[in-house]
């Protein structure tokens, strides 16, 4: 049997294109988003992040697929503001789509995975960083390729502690997402031995630095807002990018800024060119005409995971792929220096967290010396023993 199988495979491989290729359709559901006004003139306006990553993933999957007789296709659906995902999911299910990249906010994602047709599908969360989705709201039909807030906070905390910048001034924005990020940062500080000296909300109305004398206003506002006792590093939680970028160079004390701005912890950064990432970034830029964002990367990871499983199994059978993705054997090459896999207890993809400056990569966590009984990657985020997820 094995011999027969390998002969068939050899034939397939030896004559690419001669056998009718099998096709797998990967679904993508995104949302129309109003792109925030760029803070500065160098910022790239992006309206299709996530989608472009999924597209590149399909192209990369096809690289191996063309030699194995596997054809990958993307079926993309973009929801209007406020639109529920139910109809899109039903129509994808009707096409026989088994895998869906969910480029959705947490609330819409929760609707999606609970939709009637969703039971037999597997969703890849490529946008929502909410820890709750990996904890009490976790689902059997849901994997996460975007890192959770706690993973980002832990990655940043390890680097700051490695630097011995252990005394933090935490400055928190007004939105629920900022509060959630702050909670993750507080948890990370406790876990890795940092101390939050000052914990303060940002109460100013976001000023625009683009106004004619914008810098004059900021130059007076920010020293006042950061007038606190001594600390090593200002850690900012401002996911909407409303004020964090104005902090650097304007704080009352001369201190570095880290968090959502300054030294940024994320799953991907356009500045990463280590571990062969140059090629991925170049391919992406050629395709999309802009830099690859962390959401593009998460969507790319999702589509590549399906491709990698199909390659290793030499099969497009959804049930086999689903089982393999969650197995110990699965390892994806993600241009971050080591193989990536899914945590069996909550479906989160284990991955290094990049620490990036505005122009260059600064570091990558886990940092040396932070050990774990399974893998150093599990020092980032909610660990098995503390997980509230019951699948």
């Amino acid at each position, binding site marked *: 049997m094995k011999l027969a199988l*390998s002969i068939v495979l*050899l034939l397939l*491989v*030896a004559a*690419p294109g001669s056998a009718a290729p099998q096709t797998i359709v990967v679904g993508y559901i995104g949302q129309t988003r109003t792109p925030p006004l760029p803070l500065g003139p160098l910022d790239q306006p992006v309206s299709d992040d996530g989608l472009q990553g999924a597209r590149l993933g399909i192209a*990369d999957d096809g*690289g*191996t697929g063309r*030699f*194995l007789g596997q054809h990958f296709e993307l079926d993309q659906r973009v929801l209007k503001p406020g639109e529920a995902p139910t109809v899109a999911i039903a129509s994808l299910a009707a096409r026989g789509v088994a895998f869906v990249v969910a480029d959705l906010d947490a609330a819409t994602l929760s609707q999606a995975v609970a939709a009637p047709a969703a039971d037999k599908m597997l969703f890849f969360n490529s946008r929502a960083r909410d820890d709750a989705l990996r904890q009490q709201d976790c689902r059997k039909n849901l994997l996460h390729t975007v890192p959770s807030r706690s993973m980002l906070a832990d990655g940043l905390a390890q680097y700051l502690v490695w630097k011995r910048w252990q005394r933090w001034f935490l400055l928190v924005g007004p939105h629920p997402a900022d509060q959630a990020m702050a909670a993750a940062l507080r948890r990370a500080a406790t876990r890795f031995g940092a101390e939050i000296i000052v914990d303060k909300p940002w109460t100013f109305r976001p000023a625009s630095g683009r106004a004619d004398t914008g810098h004059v206003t900021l130059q007076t506002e920010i020293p006042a807002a950061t007038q606190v006792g001594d600390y090593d590093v200002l850690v900012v939680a401002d996911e909407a990018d409303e004020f964090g970028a104005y902090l650097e160079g304007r704080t009352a004390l001369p201190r570095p800024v880290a968090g959502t701005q300054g030294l940024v912890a994320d799953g991907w950064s356009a500045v990463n060119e280590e571990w*062969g990432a*140059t*090629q991925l970034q*170049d*391919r992406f830029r050629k395709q999309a005409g802009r830099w690859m964002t962390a959401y593009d990367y998460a969507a790319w990871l999702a589509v590549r995971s399906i491709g*990698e499983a199909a*390659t*290793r199994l*030499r099969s497009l059978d959804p049930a086999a792929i689903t089982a393999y993705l969650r197995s110990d054997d699965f*390892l*994806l*090459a993600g241009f971050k*220096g*080591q*193989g990536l896999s899914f945590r069996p207890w909550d479906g989160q993809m284990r991955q290094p967290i990049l620490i990036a400056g505005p122009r260059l990569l600064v570091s990558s966590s886990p940092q040396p010396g932070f050990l774990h009984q*399974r*893998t*150093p*990657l599990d020092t980032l985020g909610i660990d098995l023993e503390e997980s509230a997820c019951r699948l």
Partner: protein
Amino acid sequence: MQVVIAFLLSLFILSRPATAETIYVSNEQDNTVAVVDGASMSLSTTIDVGRRPRGMALSVDKKRLFVAVGDDNRIDVVDLGNRQVTGQLPSGTDPEFFVVHPDGKRLFVANENDNLVSVVDIESAKVIGTIDVGVEPEGMAVSADGRYVACTSETTSMVHLIDAGTFELVDNLLVDTRPRAAAFSPDGKQLWVSSEIRGTVTVFDTTSRAETGKIQFEVPGIRREGVQAVGMEMARDGATAYVALGPANRVAEVDTKTLAVRRLYLVGQRPWHVVLSDDQKRLVSANGNSGDISFIDLENEEVVKSVPVGRGPWGVVIGP
């Protein structure tokens, strides 16, 4: 005729002192090639080359060293007499690794960014052919008889077998995730391919192209993500292969018959490539993260010296 030459060559090799050799190391982050004296195991000098030097190979007459300088999209030619860059060859974009065909006239170059292998005619300094391969071509090997060139493509997880005469793809074989290096056994019967992400080497029969074996490297105390197989070197007698294990900071010695790992040598940090001395008694590894090379005495089975060579050592070649 060939036999006579081989015989004369072997006499020459046997009669030479083992240490009369020179090690060349490409320093990826310094844009230099370090020259290390094999006898004293000390750094002699460094040669300035183009930007981001990685893959290297000697000309067939061993008088010149070809150095792929990826960021400059070319191959620098170093005259080993005066130790200076005396010429340049085209390479296609972003050359990382390449091989010199045994005919001495052609280079086969992996163009990592363009999914191509370029064939370069050395004398005319022209690209005389390109071959479409998978995404991110990386490792290159050529069979001793010159018939086949092998190229790995990292994202496609394939090794592509190329007819060196017609430049046509003969076969595409699936290998483990993110393949790095490829190597033919000296008799040409086997093709070995290393996988960075899965920490394995897959062995193929070159004729039937069937997978005949797999080596899963394991290092006590290191998680599987940290054990990555990269550069490889086969002993001339075909009995032993050496595999650099990247972030595991080890070089594995493998019995090519049983595929058993005989021993692991602890070298510097993140060895990329390894090379055997002409007398096959020493192995040298280029260690990317610790900025040095390790000398391994294979008879006594020990690492005898590490020599700082610069920042980001990557490729390593031994010449006279």
